[in-house]
């Protein structure tokens, strides 16, 4: 086969979802035109809904039902993919084009051993000898960084951590050394330390196996030290493409510049002001010796796997307390205990007002069958039982407006909202019960850069104007540095370091903090 400069050449691709009612809808991909050069790592960034994933699915031939390509072509090493026989095209998946996705925790069949999950790639592509298959899987597993590949081969997916699962998936995608590896947000559900490891691994594989990578992300900082070139998408169009350093340091396009500003989360640019915290006043939340875990109930003896080993915590009025730590350190268990959602020992005292919560995934937090109004009403009903309908509506609208939405959203259902809007509804549900403390668990991690910036601004506004305290759990240390005056670092179920953010982050003492900051520096640059 002749050597092509471009592994993939997408030529004026237009794609839409026509329906009987609307045969000519607004295209989801509009005249998308680019090439992926042999051996490069090409970043594709843009907000949610900009068409990044559709572009990758169009190349892979895995478009969802109802999608129609109305114009253009896609060539893979000179061969036209769109006119190809579907069966031949499917055969290319796994051997010529590999893919890895965002959520490693659910991307492996839970009923099959890890080895079997990978084995099918080789079976489908005609490698008959089981011994040979096993050997090449084990070899690839050690290539992706497992020191005990034979052991991992025999494990089930639920026995691995998120980072390990992503390694397994990368091994699966790279098994047959495909020419092109499409990575769709491969690190956005991983913590900073793991993200850095996975990106290093991908870069390494790219060199070793001579692969080309299309790297889709809404995390601009992940792109910085990883990609050779970057394209920016907006509303189905590619509006900017250049080398990574030019895009990130010297953006010529106004929208790219705007994206970068939001991604930087610069408090001055966003107009964020810190609230004054009075540490001599009595705390809104005092937690003492919180211990929690999962009980294995046997017939007789019961033993406990402790996830939290005695956590003490105080949050003061007007304060935003940052809580950081790598995955599995017990952050989520802690906030679930504080909210009373998990059985635990120790005491958590909340003074005065109620506690609200905002979670990571605004999709699963809202009931898909009900409207925004229903959700707010539900939140209101629990606390304010004796209200007239007018008072109720007034409160609902006030909460919506404070969360940056308006009356128009009252009758919408969750699927008619964007990720950022859903998160705003979740925040409005908190606000309506007038909380003294809001516990926010990774409220930004499922949002793109622009929405993150908006939600961040909203939370700090609430903090300043209402005096509401926040416990902010995030793996984005950058955000903590910007808005939280005090920070707590967790490791292995305990608080290993705490204090004023500036002091802790500029002079870390605990090894866990140092590891987190190292990864942060590597990922985002100094």
């Amino acid at each position: 086969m002749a050597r092509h400069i471009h592994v993939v050449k997408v030529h004026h691709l237009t794609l839409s979802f026509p329906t009987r009612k609307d045969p000519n809808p607004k295209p989801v991909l509009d005249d998308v035109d680019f090439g992926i050069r042999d051996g490069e790592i090409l970043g594709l960034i843009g907000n949610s809904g900009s068409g990044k994933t559709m572009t990758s699915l169009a190349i892979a031939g895995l478009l969802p039902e109802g999608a129609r390509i109305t114009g253009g072509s896609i060539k893979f090493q000179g061969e036209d993919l769109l006119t190809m026989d579907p069966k031949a095209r499917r055969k290319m998946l796994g051997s010529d084009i590999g893919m890895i996705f965002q959520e490693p925790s659910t991307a492996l069949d839970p009923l099959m051993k890890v080895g079997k999950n990978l084995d099918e790639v080789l079976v489908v592509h005609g490698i008959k000898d089981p011994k040979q298959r096993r050997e090449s899987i084990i070899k690839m597993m050690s290539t992706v960084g497992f020191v005990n590949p034979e052991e991992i081969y025999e494990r089930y997916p639920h026995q691995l951590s998120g980072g390990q699962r992503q390694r397994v998936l990368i091994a699966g995608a790279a098994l047959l050394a495909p020419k092109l590896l499409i990575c769709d947000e491969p690190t956005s559900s991983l913590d900073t330390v793991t993200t850095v490891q996975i990106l290093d691994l991908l870069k390494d594989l790219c060199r070793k196996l001579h692969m080309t990578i299309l790297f889709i992300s809404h995390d601009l900082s992940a792109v910085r030290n990883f990609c050779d070139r970057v394209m920016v998408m907006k509303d189905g169009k590619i509006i900017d493409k250049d080398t990574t350093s030019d895009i990130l340091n010297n953006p010529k396009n106004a929208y790219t510049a705007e994206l970068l500003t939001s991604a930087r989360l610069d408090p001055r640019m966003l107009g964020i002001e810190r609230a004054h915290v009075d540490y001599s006043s009595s705390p809104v939340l005092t937690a003492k010796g919180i211990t929690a875990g999962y009980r294995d109930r046997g017939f007789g003896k019961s033993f406990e796997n402790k996830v939290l080993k005695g956590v003490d915590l105080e949050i003061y009025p007007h304060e935003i307390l940052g809580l950081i730590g790598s995955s599995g350190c017990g952050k989520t268990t802690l906030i679930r205990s504080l909210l009373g959602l998990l059985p635990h020992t120790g005491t958590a005292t909340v003074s005065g007002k109620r506690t609200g919560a905002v979670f990571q995934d605004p999709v699963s937090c809202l009931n898909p069958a009900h409207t925004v109004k229903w959700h707010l009403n539900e939140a209101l009903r629990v606390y304010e039982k004796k209200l007239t309908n007018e008072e109720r509506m007034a409160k609902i609208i006030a909460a919506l407006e404070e969360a940056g939405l308006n009356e128009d959203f009252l009758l919408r259902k969750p699927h008619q909202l964007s990720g950022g809007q859903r998160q705003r509804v979740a925040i409005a549900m908190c606000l309506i019960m007038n909380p003294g403390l809001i516990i926010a668990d990774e409220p930004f991690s499922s949002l793109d850069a622009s929405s993150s910036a908006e939600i961040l601004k909203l939370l700090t506004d609430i903090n300043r104007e209402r005096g509401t305290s926040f416990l902010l759990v995030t793996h984005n240390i950058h955000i903590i540095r910007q808005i939280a005056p005090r920070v707590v670092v967790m490791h292995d179920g305990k608080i290993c370091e705490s204090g004023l953010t500036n002091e802790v982050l500029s002079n870390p003492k605990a090894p866990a903090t140092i590891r987190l900051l190292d990864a942060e520096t590597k990922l985002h640059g100094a």
Partner: protein
Amino acid sequence: MTGRQTALYVFRKVFELIATLLLVSLFTFLAFSVIPGDTARIMLGANATEEQVEALRTDLGLDKPLAVRYITWLGGAFTGDLGNSTQFRTGVAGLIASRLPVTLGMSILAFIMIVAISYPLAILSSRRPGKLADQICSVLGHVLFAIPPFVLSLLLILIFGSILKNFTIGNYVAPNVDFGIYLQSLLLPAFAIALPKIAMTFKFLRSSIIEQKASDYVATAKSHGLSDIKIMFRHILPNSNVSSITIISLVLSDILGGSLIVEQVFNLPGLGRLLLSAISQRDFPLLSGIVFYLALVTVLLYFAADIFSSLSDPRIRLS
């Protein structure tokens, strides 16, 4: 699971089994003792004298207090002796065994039909949810689900027996006489039992398959180059089975209940008819024997489903 944990698990299940059977027998006994009618009087007929009835009552042990009678019966049941039927004057165990081929055969046939029909339909229907094939299947399912089995039986008799005339209704032949005719005689009743259950199983499987289809591991399998059919059989069905096993065990125990009525309509000498005559003749040993047996089968089914579903899911098996 370690060996010790497995042993404890099985031990707990067996304990549950025994407790369930004890409760079932107690309730049967109590229910039977409050319904009006006297066993001895029914056995001897209206013409018998009061002395004769009294003598028979003493003979059968009916003059003793309720608690004593229950404990005596329970003691017998523990040693495998379910007593003698007061109406047939033979052992209850033997009676049940002689009727078992009908009910058991019908249940197994019905179960095979349920699995053989609902799985393909669910797979077909979930290919394109909301499209024509799916809608036809769903509407048909609702209709079948809404019709009680005995009405379906009558309809089937009408269609196959009276109009098409390719089935003789009510000619039951024992399996050791002619297995072919035995199967044939059970085919229609089994179908009548199976139809509503097919609708139920189909509905459940369909939504379970659609749910699994949207999961991330299916996307991974697609990106590995697997065909849709391979993905269905290697990934989607095994995963949806983990949740379906419970529903299928419910369906199975329901088949037994359904067969009792359908036997009446098709005039089959099965357990159902035996049960009815035991009730109308106040034949307590027989009644409790049958109920005991049905409870045993149901509990064992649930037990098997429990074990099966925890074995098929490594997340449960290895935790």
